[in-house]
């Protein structure tokens, strides 16, 4: 049986094609403005790269924040389901999944079978998402990849006061003016977002093993901050940004094309009372 998983996220599309449990091809591309079009284009290109046609595929399952826009899919599953199934396939000991993408931060508690037990999400606020990291890298005038690396060289922990991506940019600029090193600022940025993700994760409860996936899992500086924040080890599988698409493949194999999960939407309290 040949199946395909397509993960259409806020920033990127990922496609995985598998035959009888073996991955034939995988590809990723920016999702851009027209996410449906980007998904379709990447899907066709990936099929072409392994000389397959759409009709050769037995089942296509989509996932991701814009997964429902994949018109040709046989089904759409929630990100949490895809994450759970993808992670358990790669790391069977996983019980807590933390997925930080461009526009969302999720924490999912899963069973050994890869079922979703509890799920919390922040999708309203850019602080606690990959977008926050990108904005701060822009303020630091370095690529995200470099910010990730240099934060490991930091020797000092500086607290960031801003809990908002917009205010955070100004804070990074003033930290630069105060002559803090880029290394220390990079770590401060990662610590700040780890703090936000940590509070989302604590809502579902943290159970070993903790596995981090999503685009931000590629950021070694962030993973380091998250380990400190949680005071736990955090495992990262290879190609963590493909886990959603892989989970969709797993669902396709199992014949799951629809599933509902109840999310606890996390919103940061921003109003303070005073007298």
């Amino acid at each position, binding site marked *: 049986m040949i199946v395909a998983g397509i993960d259409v996220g806020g920033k990127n599309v990922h496609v995985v094609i598998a035959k009888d449990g073996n991955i034939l091809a995988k590809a990723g591309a920016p999702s851009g403005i027209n996410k449906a079009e980007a998904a379709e284009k990447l899907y066709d290109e990936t099929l072409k790269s392994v000389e397959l046609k759409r009709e050769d595929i037995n089942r296509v399952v989509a996932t991701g924040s814009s997964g429902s826009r994949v018109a040709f899919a046989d089904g759409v599953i929630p990100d949490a389901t895809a994450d759970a199934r993808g992670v358990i396939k790669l790391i069977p000991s996983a019980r807590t999944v933390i997925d930080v993408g461009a526009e969302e931060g999720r924490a999912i508690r899963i069973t050994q079978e890869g079922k979703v037990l509890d799920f919390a999400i922040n999708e*309203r*606020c*850019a602080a606690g998402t990959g977008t926050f990291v990108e904005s701060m890298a822009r303020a630091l005038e370095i690529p995200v990849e470099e910010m990730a690396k240099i934060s490991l060289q930091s020797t000092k922990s500086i607290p960031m006061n801003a*809990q908002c*991506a*917009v*205010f955070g940019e100004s804070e990074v600029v003033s930290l630069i003016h105060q002559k803090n090193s880029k290394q220390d600022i990079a770590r401060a940025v990662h610590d700040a977002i780890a703090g936000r993700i940590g509070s989302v994760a604590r809502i579902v409860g943290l159970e070993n093993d903790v596995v981090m996936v999503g685009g931000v899992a590629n950021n070694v500086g962030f993973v380091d901050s998250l380990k400190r924040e949680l005071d736990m080890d955090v495992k990262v599988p290879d190609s963590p940004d493909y886990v959603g698409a892989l989970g969709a493949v797993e669902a396709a194999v199992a014949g799951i094309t629809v599933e509902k999960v109840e999310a606890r939407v996390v919103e940061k309290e921003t*109003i*303070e009372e*005073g007298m």
Partner: protein
Amino acid sequence: MVEVEKVEYWRWPETSWINPDIDWQTGKVITAGIDVGSVSSQAVVMIDNELFAYSSTRTGSDSPESARKCLNMALVGSHMTEDNIDYCIGTGYGRVNVPMAQQTLTEIACHARGANFMYGPEIRTVMDMGGQDCKAIRTDERGRVVKFMMNDKCAAGTGRGMEVFADLIGVPVWEIGERSFQIDKEPERISSTCVVFAKSEVVSLLQEGVPENEVMAAYCAAMTHRITELLNRLGVEEKFAITGGIAKNIGIVKRLEKEIGITTAELSWYDAKMRDKELPFDTQIAGAIGAALFAAAMLERGRAKSVRKA
């Protein structure tokens, strides 16, 4: 190479005013309030509790310098100098860096007091939106703070949210309000709360060909909704006044009045003469007015000593 002048879309123009009916040399007590905010600074000079001069200028990277520049601008043409001032109080985000101030007070106390002066003693609720925060304040008939709710954590629902939007669409912040009503019908509001996500939403709307004015309406509506959450938490008691830069944006003021079902109070201080002036009364000076009034009250009660040199 062609030099392109960089247009600043995000801040209000600077303003200043001197009361032509007051001869300061005959005044008894001269006090000043200086409100150094994150984006703009205001200086107010009061003579015997009457408004004599004010200015609203831009805050630079150097707060003491911004405070000085602001006071100097208020005093231009008056022949008054810093040395003629009995007492000065600093307020606002940069209040600790006002070199000519003898004391500092929080902007919440100052805005409540200032609104009481500007809009009259019937004011019970004041909303002040600054460059990076938004405060909803309940006050008594003397302009004292009863309680308040504040958001300074999230840029949505603060002046910054509007600045970012103005910069993004390249329309000056002072035009957005008017233009947001030049539409066929009120669009759905921008669905993202977060300013960063709202930016992407705005870009997609513009790319889909939604007219600019409609996008402005959608953004104003979203921001209004955010402010309403804060006001509802506090509970709005009439009369209600808005101070700060946002009071000058009718795109927000009108929508907010509709959403909470309460009309904002008219300026009570507003002299008929002021209406004829080219520049409207600047609602951003409430905090500085409050500070100057507190200064006068302290002198009167002997809680402060005049530092007047000339």
